[in-house]
C-alpha cells in the first residue's frame, strides 16, 4: 500500500525529517489560498499514485496568485495517466544547490533491509542504478540488530556526501530506517533530498510504501489508504480482493495460484491467443469468489472468451463448479463463452456438477486453452 506524497511527508515530518512548508488543497480556491500562505515561488503537486508526475503535467511551479490559480485549475480534476486528481499539495519551493537520494528497502535476494544513499538525486533512481550502480552506496542492515549508527554514516560517506552535511544526512537516513522499520515499510525514499546553499537538508519528495500484509498492526496507516484507482476494472478487483492485471488481449483468464495463472497466460500466447488479463482467485475460493471473478472478466469489453482453470489443493472443485453454475444461471444469455478445466481436490465431483449447457468442459490445461483460443478466433472472424 502506497501513501500519497502528502501523507508520507506528514509521517516523515512528525519523525523529525525537515520538509518544505506545504498545505493540502482540494479546490482551486483552497489551492490559491494555500499558495498565498506558503508564499511564492511554490509548487502545485497532484496527489495521485503515478510515477513521473512532473513530466505528465501534474506538478507546476508558480510565482504568483494568477499562476497559482491557473495551475490549480489545470491540475485539480485532470486525468493523470488514468488517475483522477482530486487533491494537490501546495508546497514552498526550495532553493537548492544539490539533490541527494536516500532510501530504505528490502533486498529480497539477501533477505535483509538495505539503506541507500546517492549524490545523484532528483532523477529516476532506477535509471541511475542501471547505468552507474556505483553511484548508489548500499548498506545492508542486519534485521535482528537494526541499523547501527555507523551504518548510516558509512552509507553517507561512501556515497561521497559532503562532510558539511554528512551528519544531517546520516541522521535523516537513520530516521528513515526507523520509520521503515516501525511502519512495516516495503520502500521508504526521499528523492530528492535537497541541499540548500546554507547546508540545510530538506525532503522535497517523500515515498512510503507499506507492506499490505502488515497493515493489521498499523490502523493509522490503513486509514490513509484510498481507492484512487480510476480504472473501473482494477477498482473492482481491489474491491473483490483479487490479484488482477489488465492486459490488451481478448482471452479472459481465471485461475487459482499466481504460477498456474501465469502459465495459463503463457499457454494462451503459446497457442496463438492474446491474454486479456491475469486474474488469480487465490486458494480456497468459494462460490461467491467464483461468481465475482466471472463478473470481472465479463465486464471487460475486450474479452471474447474465458478460460477458467482450477487445480484444487485447498480449493475444492465441487465448490468452484457450483459457483460457476450459480453465476452463469443468472444470465439469460451467457455473455462470453466459458471453457472450464477442473483438476485436483474434488475435481471429479466438480466436473459432474458443471452445467455443460452453460460451459464447455475440457480435461487438460492444454485442451482448455486451445479450445478457448479457438473460440476467440471464431469471434474474430
Amino acid at each position, binding site marked *: 500500500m502506497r501513501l500519497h506524497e502528502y501523507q508520507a511527508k506528514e509521517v516523515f515530518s512528525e519523525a523529525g525529517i525537515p520538509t518544505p512548508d506545504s498545505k493540502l488543497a482540494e479546490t482551486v480556491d483552497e489551492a490559491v489560498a494555500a499558495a498565498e500562505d506558503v508564499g511564492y515561488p511554490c509548487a502545485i503537486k497532484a496527489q495521485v499514485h503515478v510515477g513521473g508526475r512532473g513530466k505528465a503535467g501534474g506538478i507546476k511551479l508558480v510565482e504568483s496568485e494568477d499562476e497559482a490559480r491557473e495551475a490549480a485549475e489545470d491540475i485539480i480534476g485532470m486525468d493523470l495517466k488514468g488517475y483522477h486528481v482530486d487533491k494537490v499539495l501546495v508546497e514552498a519551493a526550495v532553493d537548492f544547490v544539490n539533490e541527494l537520494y536516500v532510501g530504505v528497502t528490502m533486498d529480497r535476494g539477501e*533477505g535483509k533491509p538495505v539503506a541507500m544513499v546517492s549524490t545523484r538525486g532528483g532523477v529516476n533512481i532506477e535509471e541511475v542504478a542501471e547505468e552507474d550502480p556505483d553511484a548508489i552506496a548500499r548498506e545492508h542492515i542486519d534485521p535482528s540488530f537494526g541499523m547501527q549508527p555507523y551504518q548510516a554514516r558509512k552509507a553517507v560517506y561512501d556515497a561521497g556526501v559532503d562532510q558539511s552535511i554528512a551528519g544531517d544526512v546520516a541522521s535523516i537516513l537513520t530516521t528513515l530506517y526507523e520509520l521503515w522499520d516501525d511502519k512495516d515499510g516495503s520502500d521508504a525514499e526521499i528523492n530528492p533530498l535537497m541541499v540548500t546553499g546554507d547546508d540545510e537538508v530538506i525532503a522535497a519528495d517523500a515515498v512510503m510504501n507499506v507492506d499490505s500484509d*502488515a497493515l493489521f498492526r498499523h490502523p493509522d496507516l490503513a486509514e490513509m489508504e484510498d481507492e484512487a484507482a480510476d480504472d473501473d476494472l482494477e477498482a473492482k478487483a481491489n474491491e473483490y480482493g483479487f490479484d488482477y492485471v489488465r492486459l490488451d488481449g481478448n482471452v479472459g483468464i481465471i485461475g487459482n495460484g499466481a504460477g498456474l495463472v501465469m502459465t495459463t497466460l503463457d499457454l494462451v500466447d503459446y497457442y496463438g491467443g492474446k491474454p486479456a488479463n491475469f486474474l488469480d482467485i487465490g486458494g480456497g475460493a468459494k462460490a461467491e469468489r467464483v461468481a465475482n471473478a466471472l463478473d470481472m472478466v465479463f465486464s471487460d469489453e475486450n474479452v471474447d472468451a474465458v478460460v477458467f482453470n482450477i487445480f484444487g489443493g485447498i480449493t475444492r472443485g465441487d465448490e468452484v463448479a457450483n459457483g460457476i453454475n450459480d453465476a452463469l444461471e443468472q444470465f439469460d444469455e451467457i455473455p462470453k463463452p466459458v471453457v472450464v478445466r477442473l483438476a485436483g481436490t474434488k475435481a471429479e465431483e466438480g466436473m459432474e456438477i458443471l452445467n455443460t449447457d452453460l460451459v464447455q468442459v475440457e480435461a487438460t490445461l492444454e485442451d482448455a486453452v486451445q479450445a478457448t483460443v479457438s473460440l476467440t478466433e471464431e469471434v474474430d472472424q
Partner: protein
Amino acid sequence: MSVLVDDDTRVVVQGITGGEGKFHTEQMMEYGTNVVAGAVPGKGGEEVAGVPVYDTVDQAVEAEDADASVVFVPPAFAADACFEALDTDLDLVVAITEGIPTQDMSKVYKRLGETDTHLIGPNCPGIITPGEAKLGILPGNIFSSGNVGLVSRSGTLTYQVVDNLTDRGLGQSTAIGIGGDPIIGTDFIDALELFEEDPDTHAVVMCGEIGGEDEEEAARYIGEYMDTPVVGFIAGRTAPPGKRMGHAGAIVSGSGTGTAESKISALEDNGAPVGDTPEEVVDHIEDLL
C-alpha cells in the same frame, strides 16, 4: 528414496486447533503422515484428531520425539511460531501460512541461518514424499512414487506439473513447494542440493517464475555442481514488465534479469532444458531418464 521427509518423520502441527490446522492434520494423517502432536498455547491437554496438544513446541517435541513441524498459525503470529520451531532444533519446519509481514520473515530468515534446520515456505503448499508422508496442503492423490524430484515456487503449478508427470507414469521422489514470498527459507539451490545428494532422485523438475534472480542463480548452480539432470519451467513469459502478478515473487523489474527470457536462457546455458508447456517438461524428463 526421498528428501527431508519420509515414513519416519514425526510431525508436530503448530496451530492444530484452528480450522485449517485441524483439516489438514486429518488430511496429512489420512495420507499416512506420522503426526504425533499439536502445539497451541493455552490448549495443552486437549486432543485434535486423536493427537495430543501441548502448550509449547518444546513440550510437544520432548513428549512425542517430533523432528518436524508444520505451521498453520495465522499471519500475525506465524513468525513467532517459526522462531519457536527454529529454537527447538527441529530438522524441518514447513510454514504454510500466507501473508506473513516481510519484515517478520526477514528476522526469521536471519535466525534460520543460525540453525541447522530446514525451513520450507512460508506461503507454500509444503513437501511430499509420495506414499510416505506429506507435510502441508498438497492434494496427495495426484502424486505417485518414483524418481523425479520436483521443486517449485508456485503451489497450483506444482500440482499441474505433477499431474502431467503422474499421467505419463513418472512418479516423484519428493516434491517441494518452496513458496512465492519475497523471503523464503529453502530456495531452489537448497532443494537442488538435496536432490543431487539423493540417490533415488534421477531427474529434477524445477518450476520457476518471473521476478528475482533465484532461477538464474539456480541455473549457475546446476551448471557447476549437478550431475542429476534438471528440466526447467518458467511461468510468466507473457507478463508485461513492471506488473505485479499475484504473489510478490511474480514481478518483472524491467531490467535484464528477472525476466522469463533471462531465466530460460540461464537454465538452457547450464544444460537444463526448459519446457514451453507442462507437457513439454514431461517430454524432456522422459528423454533424460
